[in-house]
Structures are given as C-alpha cells and as structure tokens.
C-alpha cells in the first residue's frame, strides 16, 4: 500500500466521521415536521370549523337582522299610518278646539251679561226687600191702629148695647104709660095722640159682628238665639199656644219683631224671628195682639 492510498484512507475516514457527525447533529436537532403538520392541520380544521360556526352565526344574525328589519319596516309602516291618523285626529281636534274657543267666548260674553243681569236683579231684589220691610212695618202699624179701632169699636158696641137696653126699657115704659093713658082716656072716649119726639129719628147704626175673637195671649221672651234667628217664650200649650201662631214682640210701645211658633212645649214655645225691626232681648213682652 503506497503512501497516497494511506493518506486517502485517513482523509476518507476523517471526512466520513466529520460528515456523519454533521448529519447526526442535524438529524438529532431537526424538527418533527409531521407533528407540526398534524398540529397545523388540526388547527386548520378547528379554525375551519370555527369559521363555519361563525359563518353560520353570521348567517343567522343576517337572517335575524333581515327579519328584524322587516319587522321594523312593518312597524314603521304601521306607525306612519298611525301618524297619519293622529295627524287627522289632531286636525279634527284643532278644529274642535277653535269651535270650542268660539263657544267659550260666546259663553263668556253670555255669562258676563248674566252676571250684570244678576247684579241688576239683586239690586232690584234688595230694593224690593226694603220696600217689603217698609210695607210690613206699615202693615204692622196699620194692624195696631186696626186693633185700637177694634177696641174702640167694641167699647162703642158696649155703649150701644147699653143704650139699646135703655131704649128697650124706655119703650117698655112708654108702652106701659101708653097703656095707662089709654085706660085713662078710653072711658072718656079719647085716645092719646101719637107723640112727636123733639129729637128727629135717625137710622140706627148696626154694629158689625166681630168675625173673630182675640184670644190675647201674653208672655215674655225667655231666650234669644240671634245667630239662628229663633227665640223662646214663657207660655206654651197650657196657655193655649199652638204651632203656627204669630206673637208680636214689643218693648214698651215699640214694636220689635214677630215670632212664628214652630215648636210648643207645656210651659214654653219656640219660634222663628220675623220682621225684625230691632233685636229682641230676654224679658221683652210677647202677645198675639198689639
């Protein structure tokens, strides 16, 4: 074996060992591309599945969006219809409002005229009430005068009755005297001449028969409630007081008011104040006749 062969053997050996070392190092450190491929494929599959899921979700969302859009479009359409109807109602309401405002204005003027008329009527009523009070006061005064006249008339009637009895007695005496005179003159054939009275005969006034008799109840005011315009008096059913009777309240010769009896007890009666000229007090006189 020559020297060149030896050198080639040594170089071949060294290069083989060197290359084998490089190959071993490379292979030992090489990546497992199959595993990576499988991993990447699995990732791709999962991602594809996710993409499909997301696509399905997107499609569902798109479908839901389309349905929602259709629903909203239908609602918008119906709302537009309602808006049109409400606009029509609003127009009608505006017209009704204008008509009602016109009515309100007319009624306001009517009410104002009514108030003015009411004020005038109230003034007239007040004047009428004043006149009524005056007339009632005049009536009371005239009633008082009538009572006085009636009392005077009764007195005159008593006098007339006395005079009639006297006249009757005189006529009886006249008849007796005429009888005696006739008895005295008839035997001598004479009769008594018709006497001529010195005083000429006058028609006899006939007194009117009183239509009613005054019961003349009298009492005192025992309590006064000016707030409710009622008063109580000291006589009741035991004295002949009845519901509906009217008592006159006087203080001395002054007329104060009337009491219309509304409730009667045995020894007491309660009535409403009427024709109040002055405020009555406890102790004022009450009577059915003035």
């Amino acid at each position: 074996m020559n020297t060149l062969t030896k050198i080639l053997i040594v170089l071949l050996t060294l290069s083989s060992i060197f290359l084998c070392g490089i190959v071993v190092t490379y292979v030992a450190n090489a990546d497992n591309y199959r595993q990576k491929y499988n991993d990447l494929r699995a990732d791709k599959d999962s991602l594809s599945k996710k993409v499909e899921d997301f696509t399905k979700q997107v499609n569902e969302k798109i479908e839901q969006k389309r349905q929602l859009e259709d629903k909203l479009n239908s609602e918008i359409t119906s709302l537009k219809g309602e808006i049109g109807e409400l606009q029509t109602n609003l127009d009608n309401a505006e017209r009704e409002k204008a008509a009602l405002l016109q009515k309100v204005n007319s009624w306001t003027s009517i009410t104002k005229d009514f108030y003015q008329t009411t004020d005038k009527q109230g003034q007239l009523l007040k004047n009428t009430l004043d006149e009524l009070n005056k007339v009632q006061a005049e009536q009371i005064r005239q009633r008082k005068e009538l009572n006085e006249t009636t009392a005077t008339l009764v007195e005159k009637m008593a006098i007339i009755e006395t005079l009639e009895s006297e006249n009757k007695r005189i006529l009886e005496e006249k008849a007796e005297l005429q009888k005696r005179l006739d008895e005295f003159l008839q035997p001598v054939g004479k009769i008594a001449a018709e006497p001529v009275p010195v005083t000429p005969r006058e028609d006899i006034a006939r007194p009117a028969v009183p239509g009613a008799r005054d019961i003349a109840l009298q009492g005192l005011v025992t309590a006064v409630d000016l707030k409710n315009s009622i008063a109580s008096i000291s006589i009741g059913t035991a004295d002949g007081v009845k519901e509906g009777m009217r008592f006159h309240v006087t203080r001395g010769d002054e007329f104060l008011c009337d009491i219309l009896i509304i409730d009667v007890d045995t020894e007491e009666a309660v009535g409403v104040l009427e024709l109040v000229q002055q405020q009555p007090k406890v102790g004022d006189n009450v009577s059915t006749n003035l």
Partner: protein
Amino acid sequence: MSPDGQSRGVKAATSNNLYTIILALAFFAVLATVALVAYKCYTQYGTILKIP
C-alpha cells in the same frame, strides 16, 4: 529472506491492519449515521424513502 526483509513484512502487515481498522471505523460510522437517519425518517414520517 533476510531479517530486514522479514521485519519489513511484519511492519507492512501491521500498517495494513491499521488502515483496515480505520476504514472499518469509517464504515461503521457511516452505517450508524444511515441507521439513525432511517430511524428518524421512519419515526417522523412513517416511511424511509418515499415522500409522504
């Protein structure tokens, strides 16, 4: 045959054996490398020569 000739024959035989051992070492190194590469290819790709 002389002693020198014998001596030279022994030395040549020893030298040839040495280079044979060196060649065998290179061969086994290459063989081990091939075996390792084949094992790696089979374990990782399931085949040795065919492209998966």
